[in-house]
């Protein structure tokens, strides 16, 4: 799998300016980000399919018919398999398993990472040392081979089991990032103030620290979901999880084992793969949205070319802010000119 999509490397001292805005406006601003909006819409689409997929599927995904290995047609939108099964129905029905495992594993891993990361960062000392060592060990051990081996050891690994195995092995990245951020929050004035007024440790963590970790927790969750979906599909593809339950990996498993490639049956594995890629892209886009929301500098800024008052066209770039006539200029924090830009 690829490296975790999130690039939040914790410690964002510039962050509080965002946090100061009223909650409602903040939420709207996140959705207004085109990347996040696109991602959320696609994700919502897949969630809907996951719920209604089995009902709207035109055929029973396992039902055989006499149309063997047919290319896509009006009757079978995505073609058929070697047993005459309808691939469109398989993709629709399989969405549920993929989303279920992805979200459940994401929830399990996120809960663990919050628990371990925040307590390590907040408690400090020996607890921190041992919890960080634990998460580093899990980070370094290659997760996918471990998941493959554990899942193949458990007899009849169903969706629930697979989700738990993935969730229990992939929390380490989130824990590490959360620990770093908690460390930087722990000594902030408002936390010290809360401590001085005698608030309990539990309340400080839930009311003072956690709200400021929301973005990181969210991005960790999305990253884990991506990883979980990929792992689950991989497990099904190499034939470990039960192949009686349909998901996109199962389709690819059959396509591979029945030599779909050699028979030129591209329709057998293209739809499932594209569905995975689109879901993965949507989740990554949400994560970019979160990243840019937390650290505005990362925005690739829609209009990079601007017209100045005196009619010149300038390109916005780091360390350079042209003097514009209108009030709409972006609030770049640093105003400075480099030698060649000034010329």
């Amino acid at each position, binding site marked *: *799998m*690829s*490296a*975790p*999509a999130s*690039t939040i*490397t914790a410690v964002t001292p510039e962050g509080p300016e965002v946090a100061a805005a009223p909650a409602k406006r903040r939420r709207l601003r996140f959705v207004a980000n085109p990347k996040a909006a696109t991602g959320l819409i696609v994700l919502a689409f897949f969630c809907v399919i996951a719920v209604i997929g089995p009902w709207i599927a035109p055929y029973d995904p396992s039902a055989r018919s006499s149309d063997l290995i047919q290319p896509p047609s009006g009757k079978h939108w995505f073609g058929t398999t070697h047993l005459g099964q309808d691939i469109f129905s398989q993709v629709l029905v399989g969405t549920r398993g993929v989303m279920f495992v992805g979200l459940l594993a994401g929830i399990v891993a996120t809960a663990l990472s919050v628990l371990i990361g925040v307590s390590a960062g907040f408690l400090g000392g020996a607890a921190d040392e041992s919890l960080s*060592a634990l998460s*580093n*060990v899990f*980070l*370094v*051990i*290659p*997760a*996918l*081979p*471990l998941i*493959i*081996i554990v899942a*193949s*050891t458990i007899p009849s690994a169903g969706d629930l089991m697979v989700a738990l195995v993935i969730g229990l092995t992939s929390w380490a990245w989130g824990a590490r990032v959360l620990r770093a951020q908690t460390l930087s929050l722990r000594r902030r004035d408002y936390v010290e103030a809360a401590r001085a007024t005698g608030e309990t440790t539990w309340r400080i963590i839930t009311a003072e620290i956690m709200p400021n970790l929301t973005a990181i927790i969210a991005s960790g969750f999305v990253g884990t979901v*991506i990883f979980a979906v*990929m792992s689950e599909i*991989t497990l099904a*593809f*190499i*034939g*470990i999880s039960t192949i009686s339950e349909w998901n996109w990996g199962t389709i*690819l498993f059959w396509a*591979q084992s029945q030599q779909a*490639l050699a028979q*030129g049956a*591209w329709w057998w*594995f293209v739809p499932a*793969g594209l569905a*995975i*890629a*689109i879901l*993965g*892209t949507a*989740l*990554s*886009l949400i994560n970019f949205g979160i*990243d840019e929301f937390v*650290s505005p*500098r*990362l925005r*690739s800024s829609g209009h*990079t070319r601007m017209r100045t008052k005196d009619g010149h066209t300038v*390109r*916005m*770039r*780091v*360390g350079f802010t042209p003097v514009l006539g209108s009030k709409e200029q972006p609030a770049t*924090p*640093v105003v*400075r000119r*480099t030698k*060649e830009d000034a010329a």
Partner: protein
Amino acid sequence: MKFLLQRIAFYLFTAWAALTINFFIPRMIPGDPVTSLINKFQGQMSTEAINSLYVLFGLDKDASLWGQYVDYWGQVFRGDLGLSFTFFPTPVADILGQSLPWTIALVGITTFASFMIGTSLGVLAGWRRGSWLDGLLPVTTFLSSIPYFWLGLLAITLLAGPGSIFPSSGGYEPGLVPSWNGEFIGSAIQHSLLPAVTILISSVSGWILSMRNMMVTVASEDYITVAHAKGLPERRVMVSYAARNALLPNVSGFALSLGFIVGGTLLVEIVFSYPGIGYNLFQAVGAKDYPLMQGIFLVITLSVLVANLMADIAYLLLDPRTRKEG
């Protein structure tokens, strides 16, 4: 030096943890896998081999858990990983010895190349933010969301096939005998082109993105302004001032995500039937070959640990602050 020693201590600890996990996993298998194997190969197994398997699977009823653990360590240090079920009666260590060089060559080189290419593109994309290079980001995001193995399948359909220069499976021409001559090496390189390109395409985007984001952050630092103000050439500011500092987190990120990457690249081997560890894992899973699976997990984990150590040494060379302490 202190930094390096700390890291080595940590890797030893991790290796211990991985071996211990490896010790407990087979104890979760219900039933008695060894008995079924003995029945399958009745009479062909030596008493010694049977005993070795019993120790490996924790079915040694006479010994306590602690005794089993000690025996297990003894076996690991002797390099005795048991006998493979699928390739009976070849020892697991021999199978891994054959396939490991293939995986290291393919995965090692492509992972490194992908890091280098991705980082360089990330430097450019971060420095010239808002240029056409930003258009690269959505494309690479999409490519990285595709599972490695699916991209491999696609590559085989589109590029391999009769009359194509890209073979669709295997590590070398079936007729050749592995040796260090020109013909064999040429054939091996030809066979590895398609898997290598697949891995490169799907893993490069992560590096582009993280390097771009680091560059954007570093580019607004004061020392960059100072460098500009001194009138240094743009190129020099970009490479020696911005990229050099932005590289550090990327190198430590590289070390941390090796585990993820290696897991994914193993699947490419499955698709291309490449004679490496990943393909072995596929065979082992299909045949419920537990000793082979365990051996593979151990080898992969230890390789990742060694790669991590090398990344740490690179970090040590790049960042003077870590050297100063010792």
